[in-house]
């Protein structure tokens, strides 16, 4: 029992970080599930993180209120980004979003009044693992509901074939714009979650590291179902901790190798509803053949 307790204490923080990363992965998934590869989650996270930190630090707001403001701030940021970026073709879109990540850091570095500049901000309060868990559960519930709604159906159609979807009366722009709003809000929440988890944020907190963690988590877990990013974030966060325990010398190399292996052997990620359908179809075909053989015999 005590050993279990120790284990939890040791790796509890990994779970906390995994949950924070799950927000980022879900935010990335929100746009990716409408066929947009975007790194702008980092920007939304920065907006949310610094907003939340300032709300709590400067104005003494309650953490929950700070989360709310972070989500709204991220969503507003996303509205601006979407209106600028959605006109671009997919490749340019990805590049523009990458450029925005770089700009976000430079901006954060040069606005010390808001972000603390190079010294960053100490976030004076924290949230419990349980609160974070509840928040993530609620967010996940949102994704679950969206997945099983008209929006979910339309977004999948837009992702698979935007042109075909548009001839059915689905506006890809509106779906993708909505996706950005969701991505922004969830990214903002994630930024706040990270701020309250780390209790210290600086412009480097919201930089390339998060961008790659979230993309990798999403693709690793699977970008075709909301459960994928969550699984991906958990694995991708736990991986370094596990690697450190197993092969500390080549931790980073091992992380990279795992990433490549997964891409080569499981390109659609761990959670893939389509694979289930394909397996079922294959089984059915076998059954039919089986039946046919039986009747022959």
């Amino acid at each position, binding site marked *: 029992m005590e050993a279990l307790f120790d284990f939890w204490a040791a790796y509890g*923080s*990994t779970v906390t970080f995994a949950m924070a990363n799950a927000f980022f992965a879900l935010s990335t998934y929100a746009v990716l599930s409408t066929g947009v590869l975007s790194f702008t989650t980092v920007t939304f996270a920065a907006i949310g993180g610094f907003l939340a930190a300032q709300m709590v630090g400067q104005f003494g707001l309650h953490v929950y209120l700070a989360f709310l403001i972070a989500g709204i701030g991220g969503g507003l940021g996303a509205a601006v980004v979407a209106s600028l970026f959605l006109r671009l073709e997919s490749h340019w879109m990805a590049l523009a979003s990458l450029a925005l990540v770089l700009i976000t850091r430079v901006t954060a570095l040069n606005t010390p009044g808001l972000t603390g500049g190079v010294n*960053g901000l100490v976030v004076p309060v924290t949230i419990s693992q349980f609160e974070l868990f509840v928040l993530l559960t609620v967010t996940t519930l949102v994704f679950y509901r969206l997945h099983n709604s008209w929006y979910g159906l339309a977004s999948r159609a837009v992702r698979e074939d935007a042109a075909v979807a548009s001839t059915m009366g689905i506006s890809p722009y509106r779906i993708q714009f909505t996706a950005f709003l969701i991505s922004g809000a969830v990214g903002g929440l994630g930024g706040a979650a990270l701020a309250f988890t780390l209790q*210290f944020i600086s412009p480097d907190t919201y930089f390339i590291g998060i961008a790659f963690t979230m993309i990798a988590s999403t693709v690793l877990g699977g970008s075709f179902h909301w459960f994928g990013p969550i699984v991906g974030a958990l694995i991708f966060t736990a991986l*370094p901790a596990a690697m450190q325990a197993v092969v500390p010398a080549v931790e*980073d190399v091992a992380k990279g190798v795992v990433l490549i292996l997964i891409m080569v052997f499981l390109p659609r990620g761990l959670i893939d509803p389509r694979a289930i359908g394909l397996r079922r179809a294959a089984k059915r075909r076998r059954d039919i053949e089986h039946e046919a053989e039986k009747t022959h015999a």
Partner: protein
Amino acid sequence: MRIRKFSLRFAASILALSGAMAPNAAFAEPDAGEYKIGFISEATGPLAAAGNSYLHGAQLAIEQINAEESAGKGVELELVEKESGSDAARSVQALTQFIADRDVLAVSCCILSPVAGAVKPVAIAQKMPLVLYGATRPGLPELPYVTSIVVLPGPQEVKMTKMLAEKLAPKTVTYFVNADNDGFQGRFKAAQEVMEEAGIKTGGVVSILSADTDFTAPATQAIATNPDLIMVWTTQTPAAGIIAALRARGYEGHISASDVISPAPVFERIGEPLAGIPFPTSFAAEISTSPEAKAFAEAYEAKFNGSPDTYAAQGYTAMRYIAQGLKSLDGEPTREALANAMASIAEITPNVYGGLPMKEGQADVDKALIAAWTKDGKITTWEGN
């Protein structure tokens, strides 16, 4: 049993609190056994070069402490490392893992001030003694749990700047400074103040960023101000690059730098252009004369086949500090007792600096060495040539 232990420990802590003068009181000894010290290392990532020195210094200290039994009779310390790559999130994770391990009594961490800032609240909240070994932002230590054995910048720089003003008598000084590093901003301002008080003009201030690598343009900019002395207040990689670029572009005037250029690999990389450039440091193996410093340098040389730099000295000191605190405890040591014991230490012994007073959990050295590389790669005392 429990009550007796409690009262004993209570007595011990009273003693420890009241008597920093008697930290090695023979009657109070921790129980024999193996205890772990957590070390959040930075052996990969942007600061790996320095990170390795800190780690080596700490490893050597632990080895010596165990051999000498200087943390108590039968007390065996084990150094447990967790890598952070200078990343705040990974550092926090490493710390919480140490906190979860009941055998870990204290943790040492962090080169970067922002990372230290991230780790600090966790250590305080979870009551884990944390000894900072690299971060220099003022105000980081918070008794009893967070202490720092790194000397804050300031006095050393002032001392060197005064010396330079006096010996070189420059008319114009141009400064290089890290735009994105508070520590160096502070050092630059302290130096500039000294110079301007002495009536020496500021020719220009050239800002660079830590991640920069190309310094031909900044060097051109600095040379164009026609300075008699160029003071380089930047982190290691830029400092080395700036000095190389200044010399490559034909600047023949005086240059000064900070202790970032003291490690041997920097000389290996830049070579001759570094010769004769003064820098302040609190430890340099070749010119620190105390027997402790000599012994440390010899042991380090034997173990790692290279002379220790100022970072190694800090890693070494951090472990010595923890051992000294541990030794003053009685019975089964707890983190809280260790933190209190360390908080009450006024002088770390033995130390390689020839005196390292601790004030409010913050190391403070007033002896600064002004050193410089020779052409053949040795550090000597700078005489003002």
